[in-house]
């Protein structure tokens, strides 16, 4: 079913924006989704990701800018004329039609007479062959979700848009459907644009993720790239957890920056710092919790040289099976998170113990200190 890449499945947004009265839902935005990719728009609710998706679908008219599919300008085409289909949030299946007719809807509207074979094949693809004559309300949430995907995919759209398609499912089913959707996408080779607020979902499924915040794309890249090299505090906090430490640029040492934080020094590769790095300037030093190792203060001498070090006291420890999550009270930051794999557990690492945190400087990243340090954290997003 794979089509030859002629770029007709590219989605090109140039300068599109959407304002409602005085509220700007989406600031002028340029985005290219290459054909055949699985693209995720990730962000908290109200960040403009759904509005962006709806502008691609034709359900919202952009205030400015153009939407192109391949070389075709579709900005002013109504949805029923666009070669694009949508999997709606909570599915929007037609309650008066059975599963077969729901899936056949798009084909019939385009005047295709013999739909039986195609519909049956599509129901097979989503493993719902047995349910063809049931009504949507007789199916479980996961099954309804698959009908919604089948109903959209059967039309062989150039782009499939998914608006929080897994939001209504419970956690276990969501994991299963993530893999299922990924499998279907690989099988049919259609461009998927997926809107979600779940960073894990975006990272599991997408080739490219655009993190949106306040109507703008904050950062765009592969999941690993976003996770390892966040360019803003929002991305650093919204994707996983980051420890952000305020520091001051001291000197440059080759490709590395030496920073002063609290009483100690930290090393940061200059290439991994997105902030201006003049001496005396402030930066936020970031490090992911799982990159940090914990050593009891008594064994501090055994830590190899050349690693970044911080001292602190264990404030809290929670055992969660594969790892133990520590909260460390340190002079530079009172709530540092550290995740330690439960391979060889040190019995002395209990709340109250003095510890040394250390990590490979290559894992450190630097951010502009002018930003809100809490942007994108759970508390901030919920507020």
């Amino acid at each position: 079913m794979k089509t030859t890449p002629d770029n007709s499945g590219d989605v090109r947004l140039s300068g599109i924006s959407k304002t409602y009265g005085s509220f700007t839902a989406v600031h002028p935005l340029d985005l290219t989704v290459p054909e055949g990719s699985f693209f995720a728009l990730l962000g908290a609710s109200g960040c403009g990701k759904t509005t962006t998706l709806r502008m691609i679908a034709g359900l919202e008219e952009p205030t400015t800018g153009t939407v192109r599919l391949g070389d075709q300008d579709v900005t002013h085409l109504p949805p029923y004329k666009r070669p694009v289909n949508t999997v709606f949030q909570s599915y929007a299946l037609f309650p008066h039609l059975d599963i077969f007719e729901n899936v056949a809807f798009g084909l019939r509207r385009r005047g295709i007479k013999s739909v039986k074979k195609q519909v049956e094949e599509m129901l097979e693809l989503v493993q719902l062959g047995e349910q063809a004559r049931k009504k949507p309300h007789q199916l479980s949430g996961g099954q309804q979700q698959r009908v919604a995907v089948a109903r959209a995919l059967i039309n062989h759209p150039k782009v499939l848009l998914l608006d929080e398609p897994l939001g209504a499912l419970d956690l276990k089913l969501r994991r299963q459907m993530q893999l299922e959707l990924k499998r279907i996408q690989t099988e049919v080779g259609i461009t998927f644009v997926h809107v979600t607020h779940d960073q894990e979902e975006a990272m599991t499924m997408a080739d490219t993720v655009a993190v949106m915040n306040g109507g703008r794309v904050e950062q765009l890249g592969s999941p690993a790239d976003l996770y390892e090299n966040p360019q803003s505090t929002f991305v650093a906090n919204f994707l996983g957890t980051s420890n952000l430490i305020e520091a001051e640029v001291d000197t440059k040492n080759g490709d590395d920056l030496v920073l002063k934080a609290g009483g100690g020094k930290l090393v940061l590769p200059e290439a991994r710092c997105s902030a201006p790095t003049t001496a005396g300037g402030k930066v936020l030093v970031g490090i992911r919790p799982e990159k940090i190792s914990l050593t009891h203060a008594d064994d501090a001498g055994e830590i190899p040289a050349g690693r970044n070090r911080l001292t602190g006291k264990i404030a809290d420890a929670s055992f969660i099976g594969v790892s133990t999550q520590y909260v460390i009270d340190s002079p530079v930051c009172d709530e540092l998170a550290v995740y330690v794999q439960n391979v060889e557990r040190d019995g002395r690492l209990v709340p109250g113990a003095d510890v040394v945190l250390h990590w490979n400087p290559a894992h450190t990243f630097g951010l502009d200190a002018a930003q809100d340090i809490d942007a994108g954290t759970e508390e901030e997003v919920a507020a």
Partner: protein
Amino acid sequence: MSTLTEAPPPLAPATPEKKPARRRGRFTPYWLLLPGMLWLIVFFALPMIYQASTSVQQGSLEEGYKVTWHFATYWDALAAYWPQFLRSVSYAAAATVLCLLLGYPLAYLIAFRAGRWKNLIMILVIAPFFTSFLIRTLAWKTILADNGVVVHTLNSLHLLDLTNWLGWTAGDRVLATPLAVVCGLTYNFLPFMILPLYTSLERIDGRLHEAAGDLYARPWTTFRKVTFPLSMPGVVSGTLLTFIPAAGDYVNAELLGSTDTRMIGNVIQTQFLRILDYPTAAALSFILMAAILAMVTLYIRRSGTEDLV
């Protein structure tokens, strides 16, 4: 933790405490039913039985009536008044269709397009109920009067020639013609059509329209394939709420019609109150009831609304 390890509370001591509560609870539904049931028995069931017995009585006002199981009254009544029956059904059907044609767009507008005007329009739809049915119908006498605006307009557009030819009007008049009666019925029962239509349209998830559009349905196709089928419960209850009272109505035919537009309601009224032939009037009432019941049953079966969610 302790709740898990402890044995479940012994059942024996709990049971005697629970019993009286249960016994009281067992009768609660019946107590709740009682007022409504009493009302129905006194004001519906008893009069029905009385009517039924009247319909098979014979006699006269002077000598008194006696139950003689004279079922021939039914056949005689039907034989004498079948044209009025037919007229009632056709007038009611015409009014129902008109109500649907006028009411559907309005209900659609209120449900999907009215925005902040929604409540105002709803109030306007219900507003006529604040005036008496009789007064409203009398007002239509003025509206359709021989020298009124409506007749003038129809005349100047030569539409009266058309309605004359169709047999809906006669001469240069609208008043005292079938058209006037149907207009009155339509006007009086329109809210009964709009309200259920609005309720069922309003319940339709707006995303279904978006989904239909996304799946290549043009707006009109979306209406035909999604909106209208989903509004069927409203269409069915609206047409029933219009048709049933319209078929038995006599006020519109009395005030806006003539002797040529008499509906079965007028016949029953005359038989009861002027001719004082109670058995015939009762028999006619039962025939009307049975006919409507049969038509409604058939209609509901055919429209298949039980299949809708």
